[in-house]
């Protein structure tokens, strides 16, 4: 059933043939063939755990294939490490942001290629150039700040800028947009188009199907470590693509647009909010942010990259120290502000940065799921194995976590499955309020739909949900109300009919000027900021054709 329109040999820059790779008995790749033509944008898609990242790592020398070959420009190559691959002209953005958090933004951008004078690094020039380059990507930050002080989205932009700066014949992007806003996605697309013009081939991995149709020429679909389809993307309709990925018949793939949210709004219980945050303030980052969440409603938190959404969530659960502000749960104020206290009060947060703030990498799936619930699963400090196994089994089934078993190390799971494990960790606590920071980041369409319907279900069960998502559509379709943040200020509140893409963009554009006595006041984007942006709309590319294509089929 493998459909190949394989090109004649020699036509491709990069060619992978017959690659096998297994980890301790798990076959991650089986007999994979993959060919990349010059100047094409090639989509690589598949479910979580299909083997996409593994394939990329085999190509770039992170892993060594058990068998099979990798050819670059017709020559067989056996890279021993990413350094060699990079030197040979393959530039890669790996899945999770892989930069150095403690180092300055500029240093990260130029690592390994620092501008030098008299053999020594020219720091002044490096910083100047970094600011200039990042400015062009819409990231306007102090480049001498440590990278970790940026939001994940901004970090992803830095990684992107870095990869594109390297002289390369092939650029590989493993889920580059998972924390990006439509605006940044558009910036990325224009970068990719330029690359293409220069004859550079791009491998593009994403779970956002819209993006694939917008930018890619050809597609390779993987399932369970095998390539199941390669071909022109234009000739492949969306439903067929999904059915190939999931390995199910087209008929059974019911399409409900890109999100699986029930479009009906939840029945909101008016009355006392289950969570109410008042005047949260964090120096330089959040300014007097207030919001309420009622039982049974999903409140979206909108805003652009670095608007302070993640920080709001962290401030609520006490993971981030606040200078002012209070949080009440069901009318009772939360006195000691710490994640533990928040959890005891029934408020949990799914963190945005899965690797740094989510998984406990060396522990098993079982231990990761039951971690927060341990006190409830134990008596006199001794964990009840039976209770624990039951909970773990339940949630592994319910969230369809794909692992070789509850004993598998969580770091060996694919990104999407890790995300589900984390969701399970919180759900088994039976929380009252769920703060979800990018809950579907990096998870495949199938799983995304599952997660989205779970959110729906949870809200229907009476939970209060705060939903932060860079996926505009997800935010709009999933939320009953949307609170809009900008530079750490609440600048809008959409309700009912206003919850729409236009409503959101309008709210952002017409945001009132911030209070003048605020020392951190950013200048309002005006005509001076860029000729392409006369209206001062924060969204780049007012040219509608440049906007990401949204094919809503419903």
């Amino acid at each position, binding site marked *: 059933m493998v459909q190949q329109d394989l090109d004649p040999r020699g036509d491709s820059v990069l060619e992978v043939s017959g690659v096998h790779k297994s980890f301790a008995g798990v076959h991650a790749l089986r007999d994979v063939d993959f060919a990349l033509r010059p100047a094409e944008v090639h989509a690589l898609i598949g479910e979580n755990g299909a083997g996409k990242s593994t394939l990329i790592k085999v190509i770039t020398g*992170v892993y060594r294939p058990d068998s099979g070959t990798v050819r670059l420009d017709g020559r067989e190559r056996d890279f021993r*490490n*990413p*350094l060699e*691959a990079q*030197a040979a002209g393959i530039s*890669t953005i*790996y899945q999770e942001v*892989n*930069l*150095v*958090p*403690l*180092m300055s933004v500029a240093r990260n951008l130029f*690592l*390994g290629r*620092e501008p*030098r004078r008299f*053999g*020594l*690094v020219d*720091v002044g020039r490096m910083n100047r150039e970094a600011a*200039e*380059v990042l*400015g*062009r*990507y*819409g990231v*306007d*930050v*102090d480049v001498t700040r440590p990278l*970790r002080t940026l939001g994940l989205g901004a970090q992803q932009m830095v990684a992107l800028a870095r990869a594109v*700066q390297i*002289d*390369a014949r092939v650029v590989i992007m493993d889920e580059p947009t998972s924390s990006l806003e439509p*605006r*940044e996605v558009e*910036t990325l697309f*224009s*970068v990719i188009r*330029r*690359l293409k013009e220069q004859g550079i081939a791009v491998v593009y991995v994403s779970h956002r199907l819209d993006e694939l149709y917008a930018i890619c020429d050809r597609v390779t679909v993987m399932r369970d470590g095998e390539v199941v389809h390669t071909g022109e993307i234009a000739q492949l309709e969306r439903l067929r693509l999904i059915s190939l990925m999931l390995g199910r018949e087209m008929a059974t793939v019911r399409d409900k647009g890109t999100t699986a949210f029930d479009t009906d709004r939840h029945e909101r219980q008016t009355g006392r909010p289950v969570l109410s945050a008042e005047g949260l303030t964090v120096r*330089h*980052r959040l300014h007097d942010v207030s919001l309420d969440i009622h039982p049974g409603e999903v409140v979206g938190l909108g805003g*652009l990259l*670095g*608007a302070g959404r993640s920080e709001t969530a962290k401030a609520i659960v006490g993971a981030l120290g606040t200078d002012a502000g209070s949080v009440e749960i069901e009318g009772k104020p939360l006195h000691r502000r710490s994640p533990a206290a928040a959890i005891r009060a029934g408020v949990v947060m799914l963190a945005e940065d899965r690797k740094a703030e989510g998984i406990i990498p060396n522990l098993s799936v079982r231990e990761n799921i039951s971690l927060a619930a341990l006190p409830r699963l134990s008596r006199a400090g001794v964990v009840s194995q039976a209770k624990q196994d039951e909970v773990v089994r339940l949630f592994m089934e319910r969230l369809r976590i794909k692992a070789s078993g509850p004993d598998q190390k969580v770091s060996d799971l694919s990104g999407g499955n890790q995300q589900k494990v984390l969701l399970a960790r919180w759900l088994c606590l039976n929380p009252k309020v769920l703060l979800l920071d990018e809950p579907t980041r990096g998870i495949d369409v199938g799983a995304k739909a599952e997660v989205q319907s779970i959110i729906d279900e949870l809200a229907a069960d009476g939970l209060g949900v705060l939903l932060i998502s860079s996926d505009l559509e997800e935010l709009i379709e999933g939320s009953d109300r949307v609170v809009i943040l900008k*530079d750490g200020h609440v600048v809008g509140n959409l309700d009912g009919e206003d919850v729409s893409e236009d409503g959101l963009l309008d709210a952002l554009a017409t945001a009132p000027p911030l209070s003048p006595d605020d*020392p*951190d006041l*950013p*200048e309002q*984007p005006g005509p001076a*900021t*860029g000729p*392409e*942006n006369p209206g001062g*709309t*924060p*969204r780049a590319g007012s040219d509608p054709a440049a906007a990401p294509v949204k094919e809503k089929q419903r």
Partner: protein
Amino acid sequence: MTSAVLPPPATAKARAPRATLGERIASQVQRRGALAVLVLVVAIASATSSTFPTWSNISSILGNNAFVWLLALGMTFVIMTGGIDLSVGSMYALGGVLGAYGSTHGTWLAVLLPLAVGAAWGTVQGLLVAKAGMAPFIVTLVGLLGLRGLLQAVTDEGATTYLVPQHSAFRHLGSGVWTPVLITAAFFVLGIVLLTRTRFGHTLTAMGGNENAAVLLGLPVARTKVTVYLLSGTLAAAAGALGGARLGSGVTTIGIGYELTAIASVVIGGTLLTGGSGSVGGTAAGVLLLAVIHNLIDHYFSQYGSAFTDTVNGGFLAAVVLLQTLLSRKQQLE
């Protein structure tokens, strides 16, 4: 790729918040906690003691310990990569013995023999860490034990002491106050340049910050690691040899526990033991701070006996790291 490919500027949006003057001063103090504490301690000591600020006291603090500070310099590099080198104390002693032994055959051998052995063993340690993937703590613990053994083997279980010949030119390398201080200072300046102004320095910092990322970013991680341990081993052996030139003999019982002092200096200097953040300047402040504190404690507490001095020493070390940590707390918190 050149910048020509880049898209037109997107809208500037979020802006980096500007820090107030007070905050900038605070952040400087935070970043240079050790220096701040050092200035404070020296100021207090100068005000309360008449002999502390004299040249002869300062020269005794500097002259005798200068070479030992090279251990902390090498350690800074190692710790920046997230590693640790416990073998420096033993290597220091071995360097001294080899230097003294070499000096009986000529000045060149006195310099080259320790450097060669230090570099060779450093390379072995580096390879074990980088290529065999062993934990630095264990590899260098092996060095700590094994090099002592080697030292004893070459000195007949410590029974033979090699003396540097009275008129050997080698002695000049370690004599007086200025030679050691200048040699050490030169190494530290080179160290600062190496760490902040070279690709090697950036690479090793990146490795400490996130080794996985450094590999994926295509940095020469393995090579850098080997080089770092090589540097540390060579510096320790060089320090030992110079120390031997100063003492005029290869003392075998020297250097015990120096690795911990070196680590403490580096950490007090604000370098994170997990790697990825720190500075050579901080280490310099750290070693000076420890030396000054030792001098003061000796001065004021010697007559109460060594047990009491130890207790005060431990207490002071705790207080200093506490102060230093509190100062730089904000940095570490996020």
